[in-house]
């Protein structure tokens, strides 16, 4: 029908811009959106209620303080609900990508700024410079305008993978940064790996990595890829991809939101600029 064809072309003009302005603007989250919990150390009674309910053992109360491993954290807010004194607060902090596993361990007392990346509240304080085109600029400089990404599911629940798919919808539209998903590892600069690294997939995963041309980068996406997530300690695989593949950037979350994936790609391209 001619009208339908016409409608398909005119629709975008009538409906205006569908795409988010992230990262120039903060991610458009709701008050309920769960992020990394924040601790008010002064109010903490050291009851350990938070550690007891954490489904992945991400929270530890040690003699020198309260620790949260953002790499294992599901951002589920179970600890916030369990805290008897209200010392643990809900935040919408989701831009948590770092370059090193150890940087994901967050100490109770803000600021939580860590070298090579940023986690938690410190990010808000450190936001100094807005650069709408940070990722585009970075990709332009480092990788000749385009970043070709290959998805590798190493045994996930499918959640991270669906968020990766969401990067290609018109709202997140990651192609605006020159990022595109490619069909073959031979065309890829970056491997975005989800899942725990199951035994049934390990050989295929390693061969996918080996098929990539140098220089090649690896991103561990989500709690499972970083440390096994809820599946840590299973007979069926490893606790994360780290024993098999070298991760250049780690993106926490269960699953990481599309904005968190974009932030991780930005960090990978060495140009993550916190907003002012």
């Amino acid at each position, binding site marked *: 029908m001619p009208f339908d064809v016409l409608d398909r072309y005119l629709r975008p003009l009538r409906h205006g811009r569908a795409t988010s302005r992230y990262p120039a603007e903060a991610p458009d989250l709701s008050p309920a959106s769960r992020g990394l919990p924040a601790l008010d150390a002064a109010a903490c009674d050291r009851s350990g209620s938070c550690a007891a309910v954490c489904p992945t053992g991400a929270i530890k109360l040690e003699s020198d303080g309260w620790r949260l491993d953002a790499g294992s954290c599901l951002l*589920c807010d179970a600890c916030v609900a369990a805290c008897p004194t209200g010392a643990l607060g809900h935040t919408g902090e989701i831009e948590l990508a770092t370059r090193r596993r150890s940087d994901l361990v967050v100490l109770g007392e803000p600021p939580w700024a860590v070298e090579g990346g940023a986690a938690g509240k410190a990010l808000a304080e450190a936001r100094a410079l807005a650069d709408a085109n940070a990722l585009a600029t970075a990709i332009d400089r480092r990788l000749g305008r385009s970043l070709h990404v290959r998805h590798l599911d190493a045994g996930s629940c499918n959640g991270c993978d669906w968020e990766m*798919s969401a990067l290609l919808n018109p709202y997140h539209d990651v192609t605006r940064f020159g990022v595109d998903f490619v069909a073959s590892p031979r065309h890829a600069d970056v491997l975005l790996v989800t899942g725990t690294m199951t035994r049934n997939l*390990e050989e295929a995963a390693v061969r996918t990595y080996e098929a990539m041309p140098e220089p090649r980068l690896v991103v561990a996406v989500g709690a499972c890829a970083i440390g096994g997530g809820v599946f840590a300690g299973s007979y069926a695989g490893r606790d994360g991809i780290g024993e098999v593949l070298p991760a250049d950037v780690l993106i926490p979350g269960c699953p990481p939101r599309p904005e968190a994936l974009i932030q991780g790609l930005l960090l990978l391209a060495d140009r993550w600029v916190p907003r002012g």
Partner: protein
Amino acid sequence: MDETRAGACAQVPASGLAEAVGRSVAAGGRYAMLVGLDERSLGGAGLGLEAVLVGPGGDLERIRAAVPLDATGYPSITPLVPAAHWDEREARDLLGTVPVGHPDPRRLVLHERWPRGYHPLRKDVPVGARPPLADRRFAPFEVHGEGTYALPVGPIHAGIIEPGHFRFSAIGERVLHLDPRLFFAHRGLEKLAEGRPLAGATPLIERACGVCGVAHGVAWASAVEALTGTRAPARAAWARVLLAELERLYNHVGDLGSICAGIGFGSGAARLGLLRERLVRANDALVGHRYLAGIVVPGGLGRPLDAAALAALPGLVADIEAQVAAAVRSIVRSDGVMARLRTTGAVPAETAAALGATGVAARASGIDADLRRDRPYAAYAELDVSVATAASGDVAARFHVRAQEAAASARLVVEAARRLPVGEDRVPLGEARAGEVAIAGVEGPRGASWLWLRAGDAGTVDRVRLRSASFANWPLVAAAMPGNVVPDFPLINKSFELCYACTDR
């Protein structure tokens, strides 16, 4: 939820299990699942198998047999009831129950890197034990003869797709046979759950699948509530309907878009992809998670629903329903699109019934079944669930059924939001008695998902098995392929839209 508490279980000798299941199916029973058990944790001597069926009146039938620990085995159920074929292979891999006379005795869950004789769900195997690597050869099923060739695809695919290996046997482009190989994402979920407190295993169970979390969560919560004699508050029951329909809606809208993507119809894929994004953002505003994790828990709701988001939900969902309908109309009017969907990937009703198809895949082949209506749970008994069916069993039929279900889900969301009672979100759980069993069936976005749960000592999990709708439907994808051309596989696969994660666990 007394209907979830499993009723009496018929004991039969291992030699008579297949016959008993066959008799039940012949009498109009619908095969639901087979559960492999190690009875030694509860004082038994060896292994066990329990078949669960839904009788013609909707009641559950349980048939259990003791199976010896050695490799003597039992006569296979599959020759009589083909729907049991993957269940029997899975139980053999994970527990060592040997189905004698099974037509396809290859390994299913544990691939070549697993040593022989290693059965992780046996109780004498510790939870975290990782056995040494084995190195055997994979034996794919291929058709041989003049002009035939085999085309291996996967486990790593070209798109953002989960891992699976597909071995096509073809002449030219025409497919003769498809041998699908899954369980690459086998994460050992069921073993990890064993020994955990019933109240604490929820985050693990709902992560059987990132996009069927509410379906698994509701099944889990219902089963735990049945074992602990807990009655979830009315508000939680209605909220579960609301959440389950939101899950169905975003999945179906996304799947309609994926079918468009499967034939390279970009404008349809973009339009529906944007609507799906609006839906998952609405989920996030309501419960703080885009895929609705952490909200359905045993005893009720894990957190309150956001009041402002709840108030805005009916208007937003009605708007999306209208836009989905407009997008679907535009797609259906496109002859170029519909020509690709019609007659492609057809599954006849008899095949669908024999293989135990469920959900959209079954209803598109004319099987009128939906657990929301047939065995209502949560607050579904008070709702009129219209069940859409189609006769042709092809991609177009699955497209139409899914589109109608999406519209029906949107209306159910609006109604559930309107009728959501005020009251408490959650009640404390009672005590569970060791050895008791609860069985829950939930109609998720992909069909009926079954959960079998037995309590262990001190309120822990002794054994849990999840048999997802995707697990039931994967063999249908293989049955839909012969006679079609290889390049139509992505489209046919998308029209079923099955999860690998749900299946592999």
